[in-house]
């Protein structure tokens, strides 16, 4: 099956800093999503982005499908951005709806 690697595994920032999280995948995908799991465990969908670039407030994401990677940008980080960020992909060999999750990036934003 498709492999998903996220980096860095851990990231500590001061409030106001910017960061870039990376997701590499081993095969062609037709589905890629970014999630934030807050410290209480709730998973929030940030982006559905199998290709191209999207922005939502301080967050933006870019997927370069031909090079098999996606980036999540967080600007002007806030303490509420803390938590785990997951990248999940669906491969072409399936309907694309069955997602494989990466191991996540644990982000801590300090005041």
């Amino acid at each position, binding site marked *: 099956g498709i492999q998903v690697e996220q980096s860095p595994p851990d990231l500590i920032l001061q409030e106001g800093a910017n960061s870039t999280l990376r997701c590499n995948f081993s095969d062609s995908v037709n589905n890629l999503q970014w999630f934030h799991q807050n410290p209480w465990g709730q*998973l929030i969908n940030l982006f*559905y982005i199998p290709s191209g670039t999207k922005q939502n407030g301080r967050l933006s994401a870019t997927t370069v499908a031909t090079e098999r990677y996606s980036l999540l940008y967080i600007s002007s980080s806030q303490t509420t951005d803390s938590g785990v960020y997951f990248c*999940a992909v669906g491969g072409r060999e399936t309907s694309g709806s*069955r997602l494989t999750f990466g*191991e996540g990036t644990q982000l801590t934003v300090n005041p």
Partner: protein
Amino acid sequence: SAVISQKPSRDICQRGTSLTIQCQVDSQVTMMFWYRQQPGQSLTLIATANQGSEATYESGFVIDKFPISRPNLTFSTLTVSNLSPEDSSIYLCSAQGADEKLFFGSGTQLSVL
């Protein structure tokens, strides 16, 4: 976006018993899934809950251990059977919205004694 209600939110069970988790979506959805998240780890897909037919299980998960029902387009249950301490985990229901995004319930934290 779909709103997903999952219950119970947590339970403590004795080994050898079973726990049934319920998942209700506030709108009709085509795809529903069940995931497991072990402490400090990522999410692993257990199965796709198919409306009106048997669920589709991922490698390593079997129907006898994780029976799933999906009687309609808004509701599904996952039963974790013959519990052992290794089943202690968070179980998550999810649904795919019309915009292809996947949404999650708040999870069920299961502890097996």
